[in-house]
């Protein structure tokens, strides 16, 4: 083999191995860090893995937001406005656009008691926002 051919081959091999490693690592990382999204009825029916980071969403139930007597802890319910409702526990400042009866998405883990321990509560910059995950639900509920 000519020297420049050998060089080219080694570069190609190097790129191939590097590329393959990257793809494998990426797939592994994706498999570990993907958060599935669940609606209230799935959370209630027990389709949701316990103690694993997930996202869940729905509407904040009117009158359900209760603050702790000390600290910034808060408990509220998320509902699909039909039949299913689950409780969320969150420590910290709620986003400024968090409102009762508005759509919200929570990120965190469902614990064994069926309470969702949220590490983040999301609401959008815009007050007309419906989280895209909830779009199907809204159409079903408000025809």
């Amino acid at each position, binding site marked *: 083999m000519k020297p420049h051919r050998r060089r080219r081959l080694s570069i190609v091999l190097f790129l191939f191995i590097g590329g393959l490693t990257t793809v494998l690592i990426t797939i592994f990382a994706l498999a570990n860090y993907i958060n599935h*999204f669940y609606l209230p009825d799935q959370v209630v029916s027990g389709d949701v893995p316990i103690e694993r980071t997930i996202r869940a969403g729905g509407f904040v139930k009117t009158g359900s937001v209760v603050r702790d007597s000390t600290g*910034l802890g808060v408990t509220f319910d998320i509902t699909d406005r039909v039949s299913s409702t689950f409780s969320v526990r969150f420590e*910290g400042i709620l986003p*400024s*656009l968090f409102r009762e009866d508005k759509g919200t998405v929570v990120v965190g883990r469902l614990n064994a008691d069926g309470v969702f321990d949220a590490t983040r509560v999301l609401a959008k910059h815009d007050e007309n926002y419906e989280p895209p995950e909830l779009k199907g639900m809204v159409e079903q509920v408000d025809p």
Partner: protein
Amino acid sequence: MIPELGHFSAFLGLMSAIGIALFGFFGAAQNRASWVDMSIRLTKVQVAVLGLSFLLLILAFLDDDFSVLYVANNSNTALPWYYKVAGVWGAHEGSFLLWTLVTAVWTVLVATRARHIPLKLHGYVLGTLGVLSVMFLAFLLFSSNPFERLVPNVPIQGADLNPVLQDIGQIIHPPMLYIGYVGFGVTFAFGIAALATGKIDSAWARWVRPWVNVAWLFLTIGIVLGSWWAYYELGWGGWWFWDPVENASFMPWLAGTALIHSLSATEKRGAFKNWTILLTLLTFTLVLMGAFLVRSGVLSSVHAFAVDPQRGLILLTIFVLVAGSSLVLYAFRAHTLNTQVQYWGVSRELLLLINNALLVVALFTILLGTLYPLGHEWFVGGDDRLSVGEPYFNAMFVPIMLLLSFALAIAPISRWKHTPMKLVVNALIFLGGSAVVALLLPWILADGVHLGASCAVALAIWIIITHAIACYRQRNALTLGFIGMSVAHVGFAIAVIGVAVTSVYTESKDARLKIGQSIEVSGTQYELVNVQMTESQNFIGERAQFDFGDQRSLFPERRLYPIRDHITYEAAIAPGIFKDRYITFAGPMENDTWGVEIQDKPFQRWIWFGAVVAGLAALIAMLDKRYRRLSHRDLETKYPE
């Protein structure tokens, strides 16, 4: 009358764009100077009519002309005049008009400032930019007309600009970002033109490099401004969220960064020609993909514009057309650009190759993380919807950046073709020294040693040392190009230090305080002194006073914007070189208490400072003599005979 005039002006812009494209392409293909000249003249017409159109939309905002739908949706009589102006690019339609205007400005600059390049190349560049303009303007006029009237029921009052956007950030961040985005359209056009003429050499690289640098500078500043704005505006002290929309701006940045480096090898050694061309195409393709992702609402993001499937479809079409046709052209023409370059060992070529490989891998992992949920929804569908969170991006991106830092530290001592091993060994000795400093410092400051952060800081210090030494050794023969490179790399190192230290050593506490109570965060006592009601033209709110340290105070606010019934937290920040103090005020709670979150964020500023330094370094490198000499008009190549 004014809105119709604005609409008509934009239409004239479309007409001139068609002219620019036709005269540019056919002028180049037929080698006719007069046609290319016509294209050049039309770029001036285009920028004038689009500038007028944009001014007229500003006028409609300042006039509170709520008969225009877009004004009615995004402005209000109570809005201060400067936010009325910024409201022009506060939502999809107006911001896209700005986008087309920016395209026209870049086009006229290329038309008038690049007259020294060969006629054929110039014609193809202008033709390509003309085609881009045609697509953008057609999209604007046929599906996103900002001048659409709201008749007969003209509202008396507008819906107001989204309060989050009522900020200095909204005034400067989007224009900077668009200038950067569309600037990569210019390098895209140079790539297409190189494929069309089949000629790419050191001169071509020299012509492109200043344009890449300016585009990169603006994109960098735009991203930094966005990060800084999110940091103080959103009220929880985050500065990067790996949100799809942020990724949409970051992916072209990574590709553009790779392009800058690849171009240096193409200019100096004629290496990586095909790859450089591919990067010019890739960067702008990513810009268009970003525009599609952001403006079509297909992704779940906190920043996305209002959802409209029809617009999404048109943008997707533009993206597919541009990406598809440019890749087909590349496939047919790339082999004509032959590369024969020899290098071995730790040569500068090899380091640039590593740089490009790592940047593209980083880009690829971010692309995958951003599009994966979308792909899953399209191809798997069903009820299972998923998202990819920050842990994925951090796990992938951070190690790649550490590897990149390693290669980058050797860059200044490396030579083209081959670097003597002695120089590499010398550089490695400094790595040992840097590591000792990075491990000792946190140990002395007694915050506990964090291995990842120490690694990052060690590499960053190493980068700064090797570049300082290289500049010192070459002090008698320093070019602006070399200084620019060194400053950019030092900027990168500064940002790395900021990211590592802030991420690891930030301390945060939530509390409910009564007036007169205090809380300790990171060794400082913060006392809630009082809370006052505030009122302004378009909001009411509460303003708290926190005292800390040596008679210093911070005043975080919580505001209610009644027009949109919208609450915002106005965090108060005491910025410093070595730490930011960040207070978010959550307002009244039960039992006369007030909610508050206090954060102590060391080295936060270093992130943006480093990035801005790197951005300005692109400007330094651009002023290098070898680009200036070429900017004189060269009539010989323009009008041969």
